[in-house]
C-alpha cells in the first residue's frame, strides 16, 4: 500500500489546483460584474434581432416597447441574469465541467463551427505536435550531452553549459522566435515566417507533410534553443549526484569496467528522475507555448488566446481556454505523478 498514499496525496493536490483555478475564474467573473455585462449584452443582441422581426406585425411603438420589455424579463430569467452571480456561476462552472463550453462570438473553427468546444479541440493536436516534437529533441540532446558532461565536471565545456543554462532563463522564448523570423525568414528567406501550411496548402499527402515540417521548423528550433541548455544542465547534475553515491564507489571498487559502471550503476538509477523531469517540462511548456504559437501564427491553443484577445475580445473563448488549459495541465500532471511514483522507488518511502 505504500504506493497508494503518495499517489493519492499528489492527485488530490492536482484536483485542488483545478478547483482553486475554477474558484478564481468564478470569483473574477462574478465580483467584477463581467458575467452580468456579458449576459446583458447577449440579451440586448437578441432583443435587437427580435425587434426587427416584430416590426412586421406590431405597428404601435408603445405596444412594441411593452412586448419587448416582457421578452427581456423572460430572457433574463432564461439566461439567469435575474439570479445573483454566486448562484448562477457555480452552475455555469458545473456545466463547463462537462465540457459544455458555450459558443464563440466571432471566432470560428476551421470548418465554420462556432461552438467553443469544436474550436478548442481542433487546436489541441496542433499545440501537442509542436510541444512533443521539441520535447523529444530537447530530451535527446539533454540525455546525451548531460551524461557526457557529468564525466567532464569542471571542464571549460561544463562551465560553458552552466553559463548557457543560466542565460537561457533570462531570455524570453518568444523574442528568440521573433529574432529567428527576422534572420531566417525575412533576411535570408530560408524558412516560412509563420502559419502551419503554405497558401494554398499542398493536397498530396507527402508534399503536405513536408510543408508542415518546413513551417514547424522555426517554432521547434525556438523552443529547443531556449530549453536544451537547462535540460543538459539538470541531467548533468542528476547524473553527478548519483555518481557520488556509495553504490557507485563500491561498483568501481569491485573493479567493474567504467562503461559498465556508467550504464548499469549511474544512468539506470538516474533514469527515473530524468524521465519525469523531462515530462514535467512538457506540462510546464504547455503555457510557455502560448507566446511561441502567437509569434509563429501556429494554429494551436496559444494562438487562439491571442486571436480571442485581439480586436473585439471573444469572452467565451477566453474563459473556456483558461479552463481547458488548466484541465489539460492538471490531467497531464496527474498522469505524470502516477508515473513518477511507479518509476522512482524512493518516493514510496520519503513522502
Amino acid at each position, binding site marked *: 500500500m505504500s504506493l497508494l498514499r503518495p499517489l493519492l496525496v499528489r492527485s488530490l*493536490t*492536482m484536483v*485542488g*489546483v483545478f478547483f*482553486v*483555478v475554477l474558484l*478564481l*475564474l468564478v470569483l*473574477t*467573473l462574478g465580483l*467584477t460584474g*463581467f458575467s452580468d455585462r456579458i449576459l446583458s449584452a447577449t440579451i440586448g443582441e437578441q432583443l435587437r434581432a427580435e425587434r426587427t422581426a416584430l416590426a412586421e406585425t406590431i405597428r404601435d411603438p408603445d405596444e412594441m416597447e411593452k412586448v419587448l420589455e416582457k421578452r427581456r424579463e423572460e430572457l433574463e430569467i432564461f439566461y439567469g441574469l435575474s439570479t445573483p452571480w454566486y448562484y448562477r456561476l457555480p452552475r455555469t462552472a458545473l456545466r463547463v465541467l462537462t465540457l459544455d463550453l458555450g459558443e464563440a462570438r466571432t471566432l470560428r473553427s476551421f470548418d465554420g463551427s462556432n461552438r467553443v468546444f469544436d474550436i478548442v479541440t481542433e487546436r489541441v493536436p496542433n499545440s501537442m505536435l509542436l510541444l512533443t516534437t521539441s520535447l523529444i529533441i530537447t530530451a535527446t540532446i539533454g540525455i546525451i550531452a548531460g551524461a557526457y558532461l557529468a564525466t567532464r*565536471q*569542471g571542464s571549460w565545456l561544463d562551465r560553458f553549459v552552466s553559463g548557457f543554462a*543560466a*542565460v537561457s*532563463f*533570462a*531570455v*524570453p522564448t*518568444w*523574442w528568440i522566435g*521573433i*529574432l529567428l*523570423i*527576422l534572420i531566417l525568414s*525575412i*533576411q535570408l528567406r530560408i524558412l516560412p*515566417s509563420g502559419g502551419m501550411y503554405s497558401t494554398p496548402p499542398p493536397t498530396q499527402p507527402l508534399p503536405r507533410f513536408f510543408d508542415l515540417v518546413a513551417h514547424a521548423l522555426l517554432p521547434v528550433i525556438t523552443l529547443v534553443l531556449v530549453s536544451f541548455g537547462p535540460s543538459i544542465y539538470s541531467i548533468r547534475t542528476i547524473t553527478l549526484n548519483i555518481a*557520488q553515491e556509495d553504490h557507485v564507489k563500491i561498483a568501481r571498487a569491485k573493479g567493474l569496467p567504467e562503461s559498465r559502471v556508467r550504464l548499469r550503476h549511474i544512468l539506470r538509477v538516474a533514469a527515473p528522475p530524468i524521465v519525469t523531469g523531462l515530462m514535467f517540462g512538457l506540462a510546464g511548456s*504547455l*503555457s*510557455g507555448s*502560448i*507566446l511561441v504559437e*502567437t*509569434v509563429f501564427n501556429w494554429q494551436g491553443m496559444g494562438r487562439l*488566446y*491571442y486571436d480571442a*484577445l*485581439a480586436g473585439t*475580445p471573444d469572452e467565451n473563448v*477566453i*474563459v473556456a*481556454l*483558461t479552463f481547458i*488549459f*488548466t484541465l489539460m*495541465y492538471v490531467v497531464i*500532471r496527474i498522469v505524470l505523478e502516477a508515473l513518477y511514483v511507479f518509476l522512482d522507488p524512493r518516493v514510496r518511502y520519503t513522502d
Partner: protein
Amino acid sequence: MNMASALRELLRSGPGFGGASLMGLLFVAALYVLLAFPLDFGESQWSNPVIWVDNPKAVPPAWTNPLRQDARPLHRVFEGAEPHTVQTARSGPVHSWRFPFTYASSHPPTFLAVTLADVNYAERPPLVLISLKRPDGKQLRIYRHTVRGPREDENGPFLRYAETPLRVQLSTDEATVTAAQNFLAEEFDLRLDGAQIGGRVDRILFGVPAGSADDAFAPLAGEYEIIIQTALREEGDSVGKVRFVVGGGVFGLMGTDSLGRDLARGLLFGLPVALFIGVIAALMSTAIGTSLGITSGYLGGRADIAIQRFSDIVANVPVLPLLIFMLFIIGPSLWMIIVILVAFGWPGLTIQVRSMVLHMRTNQLIEAIQSLGASRRRVMFRHILPQITPYVLAQLIFAAPSAILAEAGLSFLGLGDPSIPTWGQILETGFRTGGIYVGYWWWIVPPGLCIVLTALTFMLLALGIEPIVNPRLRQPAS
C-alpha cells in the same frame, strides 16, 4: 561572515562582479530616467502623437549610415524664434530666417514640413513665404501662406496659432506640388502633370531630371538653403516661432517606430519600469514565502500541514493562462500584474524555507533560547530569520527576472498597462503592426536585448551570491 567580507567575496567571483557592476549601471541609468523624464511619460508623451509628428516614421538609427553603401539623409530640424535679419520694405518690416545645410545623400528627404506658432499682428495679417535655394543656383518658392485675418466681431491685436501651431506637410501640400510643377517647366522645360509629381515632391526639389525617362530624377548633392520670410504689416507684428523639418531616412540613437516615436526614449523609460516590476514582485513574494515557510517549519502540526498543502496547490497552478484571464477581465494594469505574480510566486520559497527551519528547530541554540522562555514570534523572527536571511536574499534576486519576463510576455500579448510603456509593449507594437515582416530590426531587437540584459544582470548577481550564502557549494568540486 560579515557584510564587508561577503561583498568582497562577491566582487571577486566572475558572475558576481559582472552582475554587481551591471546592476550599478542599470540603477544609475534608471535614476537618470526618473529625474529626466516626467513620471506620466506614457500618457503625456509616448501615446501622444503630437509630440512625434515631426519625426520620420519607421527609420533606422543614425549610426547605421556608415554601414550602408548609400547613406540615408540625416534628420534635420531648423527652429528659429528671433529672426536672423530684419529689413523694411514698402509694405512693412520683413523678418527672415535662413537655414543653410549640406545635403549629401542619394535619397531624397522623407518629408518636408513647416510649423508656425505664436503669430501676432495688430491689423492686417502677415504673409509667410518659404523658398528653397539649391546648389545649382536655382531658387524656388515652395510655400506661401497668409495668416488668417480678423473675424468680424474680433478686435486686435490678433494672436494666431498660439495653442495649436500651424503645421503643413509640404511634401503633400497642393501649393507645393504646383510650385514644383512650375519649377520643372521653367527651369528644365519638363512638363509633368500633378499625378506624376504627387508623392515625389521631395525627389524633385532635391534632384535634377535625369536621362531619357520624363519622370526620372537624379539626386543633387550640395549646399541648400531654406529661406523663410514673413512680410509683416506693422512694427510690432511678429511670428513667434518658425520650424522647418527636412525629414531624414535615419533618426537618433535607436531609430523610430511607425508613429515616429523616438525608440531611444521609450527604451530608456522601460528601464526603471522593468526594475520596479522585478524588485517589487520579488520583494513581496519573498516576504510572503519566507514568513509562511518559517511559520510552517517552526510551528509544525496542523498549521504546517495546512500551509504545505496550500503551497503545493498554489505552486502547481498554471500561472500564464490565469494571468491572461485575470488581466483580460479586470483590465490591464501594472499593479494587477504584480499582484498576480506575487500571489502565485511565493510557494517555492515556502517549501524550501520550511525544510531549512525543520533542521534548525532541533539545534541546540534554538532549544536553549526556547527554554529561556522566548516567545514563539521572538524565536522565529529574531533567531531563525537572521540565519536564513542570506539564502532568502539570493532567492529574492533569483525571483526578479521571472517577474520581468512575465510582464514582458503579457505585454507582448497586448495585456500591458497602456499608460506605462514597457519593453514588452514596444515589441508588441512592432509585432502587431507587422514591423518584423518588413525587417524593422531596430524596433524588434533592442527591446528584447534590454529585457535579456536586465534579467541576466539579476541572474549573474544571484549566481555570484549563491556560493557565498550556501556553504555546501563552497566546497571545491570533487
